[in-house]
């Protein structure tokens, strides 16, 4: 396996890849020579200045891409065209159309193509999925999807994360995570409205994102995300699902479930409040770095490749492309453009903004 991009996420992925059983690291690609030098000298990794060289010389069966999002599309395409399985960091690309093309290409070649939405490998969020599949809280009526954390806390920053055109910003970096969970639980929405992309500190991108996602039968999702919130020690993603028979509140550490008397109560639950912790729910991984989910997602990817499977077991390109599509809708909606599926919603959007005075401030 090869790793492309050894920034903050890439380095952590690289460590996990090397530690995985049944995986041999054949090459590391990055644009920074000195990082490559250090890795080569101290860890013995073979290093390459371009993906092309690594594909030719090291011939990996699979690669992991952890470069700035703006460069994903061309790297993913190059790898897939070489018949190489791809694990790509999130979001997949900056264009829903491009993500859809890459999804088709991976399917056509029968390659395992997975995106790093690691929340789906967190036990509490998996438990939410299990409960929803079992209709534990009856008919779902509303979801509150949130993420807060301390990423941009001053009007400074000189990396790609501070520029939207390279994939920086709260929407791509933070909001993508709760959006992905919402897709996992509810599928794709029909449209979005009331979207606000606001800057708190960043000059070239958004620091907070709010939006409403509409589903059939009046089901709605409220998205509330802010990466300039220092009151959170680190990124904190949470999901609250309201249903006709109860409510679920989950974050990465615990899941609290209220079930009404008479609800279809699953095994291990009771009417009233139920609280389960990650300490009880989480399955061990072979190597731990920063969270079980980072290893678990790669174990899943490698497992599918080794078993000769033709698609990812979780977080396929197809599902990530859906998230990319909704990200695009939110961008357009916030800019006052009509979202694709139902033009009729647009006037409502601006009216609501007026009512609540939440328009984008200069």
């Amino acid at each position, binding site marked *: 396996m090869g790793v492309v991009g050894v920034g903050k996420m890439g380095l952590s992925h690289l460590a*996990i890849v090397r530690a995985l059983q049944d995986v041999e690291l054949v090459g590391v690609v990055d644009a920074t020579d000195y*990082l490559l030098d250090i890795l080569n000298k101290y860890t013995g990794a073979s290093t390459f200045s371009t993906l092309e060289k690594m594909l030719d010389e090291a011939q990996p069966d699979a690669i992991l891409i952890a470069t700035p999002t703006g460069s994903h599309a061309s790297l993913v395409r190059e790898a897939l065209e070489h018949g190489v399985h791809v694990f790509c960091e999130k979001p997949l690309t900056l264009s829903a159309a491009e993500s859809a093309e890459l999804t088709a290409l991976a399917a056509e070649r029968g390659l395992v193509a997975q995106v790093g939405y690691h929340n789906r490998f967190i036990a509490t969020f998996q438990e939410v999925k299990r409960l929803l599949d079992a209709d534990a809280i009856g008919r779902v009526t509303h979801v509150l999807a949130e993420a807060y954390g301390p990423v941009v806390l001053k009007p400074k920053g000189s990396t790609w994360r501070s520029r939207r055109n390279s994939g920086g910003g709260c929407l791509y970096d933070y909001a993508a995570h709760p959006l992905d969970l919402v897709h996992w639980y509810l599928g794709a929405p029909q449209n979005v409205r009331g979207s606000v992309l606001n800057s708190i500190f960043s000059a070239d991108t958004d620091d907070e994102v709010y939006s409403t996602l509409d589903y059939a039968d009046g089901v709605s999702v409220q998205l509330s995300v802010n990466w300039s919130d220092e009151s959170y020690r680190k990124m904190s993603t949470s999901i609250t699902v309201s249903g006709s028979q109860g409510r679920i509140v989950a974050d990465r550490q615990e899941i609290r479930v209220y079930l009404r008397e008479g609800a279809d109560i699953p095994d291990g639950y009771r009417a009233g409040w139920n609280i389960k912790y990650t300490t009880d729910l989480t399955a*061990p991984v*072979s190597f731990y770095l920063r969270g079980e989910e980072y290893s678990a997602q790669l174990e899943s990817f490698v497992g599918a490749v080794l078993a000769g499977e033709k698609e990812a077991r979780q977080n396929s390109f197809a599902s990530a492309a859906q998230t990319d599509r909704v990200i695009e809708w939110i961008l357009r909606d916030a800019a006052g453009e009509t979202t694709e599926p139902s033009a009729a919603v647009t006037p409502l959007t601006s009216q609501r903004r007026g009512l609540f005075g939440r328009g984008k401030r200069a």
Partner: protein
Amino acid sequence: MSGRIETGMDLLLLGDNQFFGINHMSEEKARAQAIRFQDTDAIIDVIDIALDNGIRTLMCTTHERIAEVTDHVRANPERYADYRFYPCMPYAHKYANAVTDHGMLGAVRQFLPEEGLLNAALRGGKSLMNKDIEGIITLLVDAEMKMFQGLNTPVIFLQNVVVDLMLGLGFDEAFAIFDRHVRERYGAEPGFITMNLPMLLDALDRVGVVNPIVCANINEIGFRMSGGIEAYETALRERPFRPVAMSVFASGAIAPQRALEWIHDHANVESIVFGASSRASIASTKNIVRELWGTDHIH
């Protein structure tokens, strides 16, 4: 001992996760603790209660607020005459945030006390020489140690995020560099915190770090014991190292009495680091430990 520094560690060490809103089980609990400890006086109160219970070691991250604690300790030398800090470095969020702001090398540059060394190597795009990397690691350690100046720091730990990152990358030499620097510069013993104990012991063996102090999760439910609870039990029985158990209560998932009984019966640990924040829980932990290990064994 051929000149090798080796100090005994107390059986009970006070940890500091609870002071900084870190709880691996509940974010709500973590937030409540963050609110309770937002004034450093509240932290010092807990340290004092622990000290009155015979617990004279604080195993702490190099969080900037610990600098306020160390100021207080320096200002009251009589009260804390026998007190010892086990610094755990680096406080990783500080670096992670800097990487987000400035990129990987920009972050390193930010935390180095002097720029010359790194810049000389980087500006010309030259490759880094061995001594440069060693220099960077040791300068970063020195920057983190500043807040402990003049205080007793007999053991200095490398945090698990860094240990496990280096371990995964196969950057074994980093452990040897840390080991050398901590012994030579601080006359202290190096310690390593990990979530991957069996794998780390192999890496430390490879670079000749002998009988290392290693702090790892050790608990009955196998919480964050990567490599598996059996591999941990085997390592604890058969490998020469000085174990410090953390997460013995698995962030509250296991009741103290039961958790400590299990440690006593299953793991021959030298120390236990625990994060209590109330007088009652500190006293009760001490009493359980006294009961299980005997009266003289808090230190």
